[in-house]
């Protein structure tokens, strides 16, 4: 492709490939019989995806994957590309796909939109973790909870709630009761948004969530 035609294909700093996946996203919608779902991101950030995955249990292979998006063009395009890249792969192979490769496959992303590729990759990891927990292969402990929380964003900073130090402590009792201490003030807009997002992140797991906010 010549430089001129590429320039004319670019809109808003997006490559032709991004525009293609934005206009015609692959694998969109709901999988009614999904084995696992994962919702990562935040409404408050304007950047959220929900993934639906169906596995071949004998080979841990992704039989089908769908997504829903509340977000910008890059959010839609990266989710679409990610689902294409991992569909049919085993969990082990799909885990080797990096967010950089997703961005590369899209012909690159504007720097400030790279986080969208990161989010789609986090969504995938959250789905795998939940699947493994459901199959009883990983224990629901503090480390598991922390990993799932990597997909929940601080709406103010746009980074995950662990890095943003919003989640101050996590305790798990009998692999079932999850108690979290959060730095947000009870009753605040932030607390409301976090409550929604954290419940969404753990949706489908057989656990009890107990979120504690500051007075």
């Amino acid at each position, binding site marked *: 492709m010549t430089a001129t035609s590429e320039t004319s294909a670019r*809109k*808003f700093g997006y490559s032709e490939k991004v525009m293609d996946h*934005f*206009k*015609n*996203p*692959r*694998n*969109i*919608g709901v999988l009614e019989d999904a084995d696992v779902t994962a*919702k990562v991101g935040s*409404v*408050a*950030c*304007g*950047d*959220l*995806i*929900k993934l639906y995955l169906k596995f071949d249990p004998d080979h841990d292979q992704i039989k089908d994957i769908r997504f*829903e*998006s*509340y*977000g*910008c*063009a*890059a*959010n*839609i395009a990266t989710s679409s590309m990610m689902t294409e890249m991992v569909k049919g792969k085993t969990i082990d192979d799909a885990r080797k796909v990096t967010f950089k490769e997703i961005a590369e496959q899209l012909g690159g992303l504007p720097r*400030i939109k790279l986080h969208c590729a990161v989010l789609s990759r986090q969504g995938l990891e959250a789905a795998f973790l939940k699947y493994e927990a459901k199959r009883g292969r990983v224990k629901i402990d503090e480390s598991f909870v922390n990993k799932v929380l990597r997909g929940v964003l601080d*709406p103010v900073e*746009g980074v995950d709630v662990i890095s943003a130090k919003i989640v101050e402590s996590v305790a798990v009792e009998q692999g079932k009761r999850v108690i979290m201490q959060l730095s947000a003030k009870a009753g605040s*807009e932030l607390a409301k*948004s976090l409550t929604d997002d954290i419940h969404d992140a753990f949706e489908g797991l057989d656990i009890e969530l107990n979120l504690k906010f500051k007075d």
Partner: protein
Amino acid sequence: MSQPLVPEPQTQKLVYLDNAQTTRLDPAVLDVMKQFMMENYGVPGGEFGYRLEEEAREAVEQARETIARRINASPQEIIFTSGGTESNNIAIFGAANSNYYKAKRFVTSKIEHTSVLRIIDKLSRQGFQKTLLDVDQQGFVNTADLKAAIEDVRMVSVQHANQEIGTLQDVAAIGEICRNNGILFHCDAVQSFAKEKIDVQSAKFDLVSISSHLIHGPKGVGALYVREGVKLQSPLEGDDRERGLRPGTPNVAGIVGFAKAVELMTHEHALRMSGLRDELIGALLTISDSRLNGPTGERRLCNNANISFGAVEGEAILMHLDLRGLVVNTGSACYSQKLEPSHVIRALGGTLEESHGSIRLSLSKWTTKEELAYAAETVKEVVDKLRELSPLRRKVPAQR
């Protein structure tokens, strides 16, 4: 593979509804400007000058008169600048630099144009104080808040019309409070100038910033009204042009074009736009889970519509609209270079979801009924399509 979310767009004329960002030049404006670039290309001389200088001087002074008349000012109270941002800088820094004024505080609202907010923020780091007034849900400054905050105030800077949600502040009341308390009143009227009535005699303005490119004039030219007796010390150094407040070679063609654009923007245009605006708002509000940002009727800028749509994100709407030849703007964080949601929508007290899904459509004097019908239909189609994709969509009916 799933079905394409949207069909490929049909080739069509652009429907441009981002006239609060900038407007297309009026061809009649271009005609008069050409003359002052190609034939009469001199710069204004002083009291004496050779012919080219004389011609330029006359043209600039005539333009000054045209613009002064439009706001009921005297010609010598108008200084030409390079646009709204420069006018705001000269007005506010000019008051801060002046030894004539002693008070230390600058008061403004939370929904001002970025230039005003950043200038006053900078002053607050240079030994001045600042007060940022809250606005109500429709974007209005509460004059009682202003009255409560007038201690040691040098200047109040409150805009006439808001750039995003079109709120028209009660500038007469604000001016009254300022005048009664010996406070300078600066008003950024860039969005409203020549569209809404501004009378510097009946409302008590001291400084008013205006601009050319939002009324089909050229970019890179604006003006500042400086009331007789207001003593500014310009942040710019150079020659004595424009009373020393805006030194440097004036943009003669731009100034002439600015005045022509003012002449060509009439009250009838404003009336027509406000009628069309109301039809557009009505049509957009028939879309489910939608909400108007800003006031209605006469307290709203005649060419502004701003709607928030739940469960969808503004940048995605904007891009789908662009693919269909419709140009609008959004307060979404994702569309801003800093990934920050609109400070204006946030100041109204709405949710972040409302700011991410806000779309601004702004009309020009040429906008037609047909274009707006296309816009309303296309926005609905795109919002519906994106909601099909949104994980939030199932929450919508339950919540509202």
